[in-house]
């Protein structure tokens, strides 16, 4: 019994230690990020590997999700004779929810896990330690440009996801199921509000990008420097950031659209 209590205490202590370390890490990263504005080349290189390489998976997923929304939306809406509103339904679902959330989940799986593995391996092979001994702060040189690149990429990717999704919905709804082309676009134009829908969606994607980058980079930096440690850190990144994204999405949605 006492042993179990001790274990519980130990776990709790470890949890809080990790939280403390990750907060310090975030603080140092943010300070380093300011410095990166003076060295845009490092950030651009990372924008390529974090952002551009995630592009394809975002486009393909966006297209399919938009097509499914068109199909499902049409079946439901036609029961009420409201299939003309398909455009609004597809766009609102994408811009408010699916765009930021699904993009963030894909981003965590594609870019986040890759970053954790990269940083973790750099730690395992003493590259980070070697940099410190060359008087180069790895948080500034390695972590900060990646953080900034992810933070910039995420809202852009979410926006592209939504746009491609709307096109996918159009392809199915207008192309296959015969919804009126003009109604699809004009109702969307009339009902989707810039502040209420689009801006809130962008805020969500910015918050999610921040979370994914923080978790992914910290897990890599804090990984136990063995192959097992890196593999565990990579899994942690995907699990922790997915859960954080979904729970944070609920909180944000409640604040933005819930009238609480």
């Amino acid at each position, binding site marked *: 019994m006492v042993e179990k209590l001790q274990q519980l205490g130990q776990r709790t202590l470890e949890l809080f230690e990790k939280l403390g370390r990750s907060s310090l890490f975030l603080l140092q990263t943010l300070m380093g990020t300011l410095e990166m504005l003076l060295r845009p080349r490092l950030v651009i290189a990372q924008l390529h590997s974090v952002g551009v390489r995630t592009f394809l998976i975002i486009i393909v997923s966006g297209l399919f999700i938009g097509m499914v929304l068109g199909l499902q939306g049409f079946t439901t809406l036609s029961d009420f004779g409201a299939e003309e509103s398909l455009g609004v339904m597809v766009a609102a679902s994408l811009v408010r929810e699916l765009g930021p959330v699904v993009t963030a989940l894909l981003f965590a799986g594609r870019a986040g896990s890759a970053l954790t593995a990269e940083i973790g391996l*750099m730690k395992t*092979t*003493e*590259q980070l*330690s*070697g*940099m*410190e*001994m*060359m*008087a*180069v*702060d790895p948080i500034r*040189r390695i972590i900060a440009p990646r953080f900034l690149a992810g933070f910039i990429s995420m809202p852009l990717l979410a926006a592209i996801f939504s746009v491609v999704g709307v096109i996918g919905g159009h392809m199915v709804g207008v192309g296959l199921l015969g919804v009126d082309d003009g109604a699809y676009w004009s109702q969307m134009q009339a009902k989707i509000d810039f502040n209420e829908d689009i801006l809130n969606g962008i805020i969500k994607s910015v918050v999610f990008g921040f979370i994914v980058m923080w978790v992914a980079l910290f897990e890599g930096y804090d990984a136990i420097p063995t192959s097992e440690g890196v593999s565990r850190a990579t899994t942690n990144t995907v699990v922790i950031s997915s859960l954080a994204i979904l729970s944070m999405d609920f909180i944000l949605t409640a604040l933005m659209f819930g009238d609480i």
Partner: protein
Amino acid sequence: MVEAVVNAKDVLVSVKDLSFSRGSKMIFDGISMEIERGKVTAIMGPSGTGKTTLLKLIGGQLHPQKGAITIDGQTVHELSHRNLYRLRKQLGLLFQSGALLTDMTVFENVAFPIREHTKLPESMIRSLVLMKLQAVGLRGARDLMPNELSGGMARRVALARAIALDPMMIMYDEPFTGQDPISMGVLVQLIRLLNDALGLTSIIVSHDVQEACAIADYIYLVSGGKVVGHGTPDELRHSDSEWIQQFMNGFADGPVPFHYAARDYAEDLVAVD
């Protein structure tokens, strides 16, 4: 009086009464040593005595629980972040693995510290890098990636990178481990040559007795968290301490027993767990 001045050692790194433990495991228990400027000093001991840890303590990556390390008059663990980084610019640490940045070519690896710490024009960086690579004999390998290098070559590139900013001291972590005889010979020669040609101070952490004795001016033997002996290679070879004799000659049994501490063999065989 004049004699005293001549005999006064010019100490660059001094370790005073240093204690360090990891968890409940005591790694150093009050060790002291002095490393002279311009000399090659070897720190030797059996595996697992925390020799690498000592280098990390000197480089300020770890903090001692007791005692202090001073480099050139500065106490390492008391330095601010900024001053510690300033000091590190004058130190080179050669990791056992080389710790080259795997996403850059050999050229870019050597150029890395120069680019990070200076604003020299590209043409001058090129000349500097080629000079450093020439010194380790790898000017022709400048376009290779680290994964295309053999272990010995990777260490030489790391050495070129360590001397890129003309440091005052280089620390070598097990430079001879896992090298074939030729690269071993190359490294032994390079360490001595660079030390004398560039006026460096070198610290070698190693357990390769032959190689270390061949180039070291002074040797510290560390075991069980303490300094068990020190002196020039000759003094140690002729030491009358049994432990030093065992280590220097590689005897299987002696003060360091062949058997890990256990209960009586015969008793153990008939016992039931």
